[in-house]
């Protein structure tokens, strides 16, 4: 049997560390990294103030006024991670970057070399600190998922004890919020409880994607092992007339080569799950890095990783010359039928070509496709993904979503609004989900309109029955000639849509 033990090296709060390093901000002040309005990473000091992931910016800033915030930038995360990855590689050859902040390496090498897993972990952590000043933790287990969870806890899981290690962990450790929510409501609170559900029952009860999470919970590798070695002719390489030295030209090279690789894969109905990136400089310096992805990489996913890697090499490594040759090698491939692109048939070829053309003019983010998703509000039920990316719902749209409205507004908005009663006082929402008064007027963008009728309120949060002063709720409001959707968040009204 193949030895699947993996050693994972994890840098806590990496987006915060990268942002602080980039801007020279002290990590001893409360720091949060935001994706749009939502917090994705926090510093330990911010957590001590009660700031959590997925919290809204406004709420976080009201709890901690001195909070320093940064916009999330995956490229920045990757750029500052390259020296850390390089430091790990000096002790453990054959590393794979899973994402900025997390690398994995087959445990056999370093454990054999340093005589024990504990020794190897200690040496790697010390070496990263000495080379980059970064704090890291190490975990060892039989699967990538378990090794990552072990690294979060700084634990070495003995061989064949991975399932046992995972059993007591909460189901929220799975990166599948909708499934986690469902499991909790069914009383399956730990990974062990979920693992005990028979596999065929998981597939029929929770749907296909849940079987992958079920494998993870049981401590199995995310995919069954596939011994097939990708054909060497899939590899693409490009030699540049002008050596690549600047990030912008690197991004262009990344895009062109990624498209060629993707075309090679699509022609054989394959998709890449591990991507090898090799570069050779004009002075024959060799650079090599493998990226590992949980899901098959989309053309954009490939281009992102190549761009991040080139950025990391060009800005963080002290190269003596520009990059002359770039090679992309699919180290591991899977059958690509899962990729949406493969589903488009002949009739759609004209449309596909036109959309590629427009993406060429505007960039991948310029052309979006909607995915209908689970949820309650008109915005959360639609996710826009760049055309060509996978279109899979993150929340199951077929589940019951109490508070979902019968009709959605044709025009979306996000403007502060005022809803007032006959006395001109603000209308609120009570703990029992009732309006505090009958609304009589609506003010949006300084324009007041008479409210003739209203409906709701409907709960926005699933736990609307819990005592919570920051109640979120929706109401529909009619004026003499229009209809609006309003939402109340953090005790303020916002216009969410116009039924025009």
């Amino acid at each position: 049997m193949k030895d699947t033990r993996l050693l994972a090296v994890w840098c806590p709060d990496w987006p915060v560390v990268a942002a602080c390093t980039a801007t020279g901000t002290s990590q001893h002040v409360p720091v949060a990294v935001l994706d749009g309005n939502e917090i994705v990473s926090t510093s330990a000091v911010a957590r001590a103030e009660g700031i959590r992931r997925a919290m809204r910016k406004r709420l976080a800033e009201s709890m901690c006024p001195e909070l320093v915030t940064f916009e999330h930038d995956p490229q920045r995360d990757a750029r500052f991670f390259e020296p850390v990855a390089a430091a790990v590689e000096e002790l453990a050859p054959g590393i794979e970057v899973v994402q900025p902040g997390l690398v994995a390496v087959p445990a056999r090498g370093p454990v054999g070399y340093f005589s024990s897993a504990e020794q190897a972990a200690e040496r790697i952590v010390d070496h990263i600190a000495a080379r980059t000043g970064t704090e890291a933790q190490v975990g060892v287990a039989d699967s990538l998922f378990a090794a990552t969870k072990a690294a979060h806890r700084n634990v070495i899981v003995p061989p064949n004890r991975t399932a046992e290690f995972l059993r007591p962990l909460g189901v929220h450790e799975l990166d599948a919020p909708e499934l986690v929510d469902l499991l909790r409501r069914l009383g399956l609170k730990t990974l062990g409880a979920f693992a005990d559900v028979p596999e065929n029952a998981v597939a029929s009860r929770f749907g296909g994607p849940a079987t992958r999470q079920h494998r993870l919970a049981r401590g199995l590798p995310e995919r069954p092992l596939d011994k097939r070695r990708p054909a060497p002719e899939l590899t693409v390489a490009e030699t540049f007339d002008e050596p690549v030295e600047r990030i912008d030209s690197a991004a262009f090279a990344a895009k062109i080569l990624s498209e060629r690789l993707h075309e090679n894969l699509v022609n054989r109905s394959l998709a890449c799950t591990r991507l090898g990136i090799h570069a050779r400089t004009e002075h024959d310096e060799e650079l090599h890095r493998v990226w590992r992805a949980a899901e098959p990489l989309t053309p954009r996913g490939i281009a992102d990783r190549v761009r991040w890697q080139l950025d990391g090499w060009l800005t963080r490594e002290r190269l003596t010359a520009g990059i002359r040759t770039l090679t992309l090698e699919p180290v591991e491939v899977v059958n690509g039928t899962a990729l949406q692109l493969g589903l488009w048939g002949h009739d759609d070829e004209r449309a596909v070509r036109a959309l590629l053309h427009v993406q060429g003019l505007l960039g991948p983010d310029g052309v979006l496709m909607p995915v209908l998703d689970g949820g309650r509000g008109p915005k959360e039920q639609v996710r826009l993904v760049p055309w060509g990316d996978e279109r899979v719902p993150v929340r199951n749209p077929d589940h019951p979503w109490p508070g979902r409205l019968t009709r959605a507004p044709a025009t979306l908005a996000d403007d502060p609004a005022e809803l007032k009663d006959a006395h001109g006082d603000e209308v609120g929402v009570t703990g029992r989900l009732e309006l505090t008064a009958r609304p009589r007027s609506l003010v949006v963008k300084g324009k007041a309109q008479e409210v003739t009728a209203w409906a709701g309120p409907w709960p926005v949060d699933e736990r609307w029955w819990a005592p919570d002063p920051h109640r979120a709720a929706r109401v529909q409001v009619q004026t003499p000639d229009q209809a609006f959707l309003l939402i109340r968040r953090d005790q303020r009204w916002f216009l969410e849509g116009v039924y025009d």
Partner: protein
Amino acid sequence: MSRSATASLAALGVNPASELTSTTTDHTTGRVLPVRGELAGLLPWGGLRRGSTVSVGGSTSLLLALLAGATADGCWAAVVGLPQVGVLAAAELGVSVRRLVLVPRPGADPGPVIAALLDGIDLVAVACPLPPSLARRLTARARQRRAVLIAFGAWPSPDVRLTAESVRWNPLHDGAETLRRQQISVRSGGRGEAGKPKHVVLTFGEEEIELPLVAGDPPASDEPADAGPDRVDELASRRATTRGRPA
């Protein structure tokens, strides 16, 4: 005006005299893209004729409803320059969002973007203001590429012009009802055959209200104005109007 209208209709392959007889063939040969039944009566060809330009004003729901029939039939649609478009509402109006593409921000030079879309996408809805000269070039491009250009807002001499004069919803009963049924009063006009002004009241979302009509007790409302007339009669009369007869 009338001469140029005839000329461009001829370029579309439309012979005004034989138009009524050619419609059936056009439907079966795919030269006319299907629309929701209520809308067929508003359009001179009973659908969206490939190569034509239709302008829509006053209601985003009306714009989205125009995309429903064709996308459900396997055509692709793109919406350009409308970042606030409600995709869920589009789905509710019958648009197959699997074949809906959004280009929310076509950039400072939207001409090449829209032209590229017209090359491969069956229905291209444009919501960004354009200089009239560019708009005319795109009208010509749509005609040449057999695409349907739907302008959301003003557009120089479209083949068909649809204007929503009012958008009304079923009255809400404070806290007890919810928005279900939408009534859009539309006036149509345009060039050639489409030039005959029509006025139609479209109703979207009838199917949802049939349940309370059968099973529910009418709410004992103290607001007779909101409760409306006999709803069954109202529904029946609306069904008649949505078949496309001028109201």
